[in-house]
């Protein structure tokens, strides 16, 4: 009886942590104009909840309780630096009483996201800052996902928070003149989180697991708060399309490329949701790169499911995307689409035009080059050499094993 009550209290505190962290932090940070201080106060409020809820029962409005507890700490200038004893001795004074007025908490997460996308914040710190402030992820977890030392990540985050405080960046939705740039940065930051998670797919270890779920969650929050933004919808659609194929990308720990995937393993409900989001985005008549990328995914899904030949529309979309954003990734994607339409030789010619400095350690370039050379089958030595580069540049053990297997086949 007692144990289940305690369990209930612990679960309630954890649940509140997952669902409310960003809302509470956004609210407090905005009121105090100090993200770091708000984080410390909120961390203490959660610790306090874990101490008191299991014994005393969960308050009627857990969010408001946490908010009041954190606010009291901020008012008293309490900091996480205090020892646990000091925190404990302050509990009686700082714990909100059930009779105290519990305020309604306005959702300021969107405002917080816009702060994370502020041009004054170092581009490399935007995604980590968003993951920490809106989702409450630890610096260690973020550091591993971004392949950065936890020390460096901690410093980067502290610097970003100090910058918000020192430069007085307001936690609010920017005016029309800044809105476009800030929104673009917010979308990029969310997509970067997804990309990191995508790379580390197949890792079941929770602490090292990627951030794909978190990124999708952030995009959902963004779409919920700004339903009229087509690119936010496009980004959500793109990530849902990719996510819907997750189970099929690995079978028994082996890597399976798109063309060989068992479509029965796809999450079609998720893919349908992606289609619906993309359609809604299209209706808003604000084209953009994320909608283009989602459209490419949509066409891929269609052609895999129906067997229809959609190589030409795929190429057109890649061409539009590369024009809009000529990144090395998009240009390699275009070369792959070109090869599908015009054959491996044409694809290889496009690859040859890319600057060597950008392709030297870019794994997808070498993987595509190896595949096309193998299809062509005229230069064994160049094929073997491209495979070696592709194998040597991957971080993924399953992809490495797959490519080693492929490299020993005579023709593709």
């Amino acid at each position, binding site marked *: 009886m007692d144990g289940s009550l305690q369990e209930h209290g612990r679960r309630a505190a954890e649940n509140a942590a997952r669902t409310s962290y960003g809302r509470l932090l956004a609210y407090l940070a905005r009121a105090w104009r100090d993200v770091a201080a708000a984080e410390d106060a909120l961390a203490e409020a959660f610790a306090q909840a874990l101490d008191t809820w299991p014994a005393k029962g969960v308050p009627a409005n857990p969010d408001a309780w946490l908010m009041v507890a954190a606010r009291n700490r901020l008012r008293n200038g309490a900091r996480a630096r205090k020892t646990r004893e000091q925190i404990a001795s302050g509990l009686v004074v700082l714990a909100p009483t059930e009779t105290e007025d519990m305020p309604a908490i306005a959702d300021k997460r969107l405002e917080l996201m816009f702060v994370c996308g502020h041009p004054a914040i170092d581009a490399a710190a935007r995604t980590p800052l968003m993951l920490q402030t809106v989702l409450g992820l630890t610096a260690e977890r973020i550091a591993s996902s971004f392949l950065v030392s936890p020390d460096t990540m901690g410093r980067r985050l502290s610097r970003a928070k100090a910058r918000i405080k020192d430069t007085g960046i307001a936690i609010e939705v920017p005016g029309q003149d800044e809105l476009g740039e800030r929104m673009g940065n917010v979308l990029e930051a969310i997509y970067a989180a997804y990309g990191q998670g995508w790379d580390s797919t197949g890792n079941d270890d929770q602490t090292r697991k990627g951030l794909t779920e978190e990124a999708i969650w952030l995009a959902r929050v963004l779409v919920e708060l700004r339903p009229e933004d087509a690119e936010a919808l496009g980004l959500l659609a793109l990530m849902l399309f990719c996510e819907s194929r997750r189970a099929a990308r690995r079978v028994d720990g082996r890597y399976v490329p798109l063309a060989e995937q068992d479509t029965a393993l796809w999450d079609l409900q998720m893919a349908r949701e992606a289609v619906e989001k993309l359609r809604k985005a299209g209706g808003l008549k604000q084209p953009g790169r994320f909608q283009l990328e989602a459209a490419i995914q949509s066409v891929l899904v269609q052609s895999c499911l129906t067997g229809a030949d959609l190589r030409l529309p795929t190429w057109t979309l890649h061409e539009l995307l590369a024009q809009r954003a000529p990144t090395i990734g998009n240009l390699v994607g275009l070369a792959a689409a070109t090869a599908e339409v015009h054959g491996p030789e044409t694809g290889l010619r496009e690859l040859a035009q890319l600057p060597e400095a950008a392709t030297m350690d870019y794994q997808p370039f070498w993987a595509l080059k190896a595949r096309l050379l193998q299809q062509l089958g005229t230069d064994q030595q160049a094929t073997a050499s491209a495979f*070696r*580069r592709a194998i040597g540049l991957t971080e993924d*053990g399953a992809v490495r094993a797959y490519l*080693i297997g492929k490299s020993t086949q005579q023709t593709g």
Partner: protein
Amino acid sequence: MQHMLMFYENEAQVAAQRDNAERAGPYWDAWNAYMGALYPTGIVLRGDALLPPSAATSVRLEGGNRLVQDGPVAVTKEQLAGYVVIEVPDLDAALSWAARCPAATYGAVEVRPVLDLSNQG
């Protein structure tokens, strides 16, 4: 910045791979490919692969007495198997090369900055 990437492998696990006719090929393919991707970038200053820790001999002087032992200094599951020293702009770049190393998949890679003696006056 110069960083040393130290490759740690689980010797028992690796020996089982190297001594297995079917698995030895992919093991060496992965290493050759990694080095084949690393060297053309021109960032490698030096590097070596080492013979297994069973070939090691450790020496120390205890109270003036020589103590020579067969085997590595620390008997741990994962042992140093090789290293490279690379010249990269920052730690982040060194870490991304560490992550690509086959040893990162089944062992570990330690990244350490090389002491820059030119700054010591």
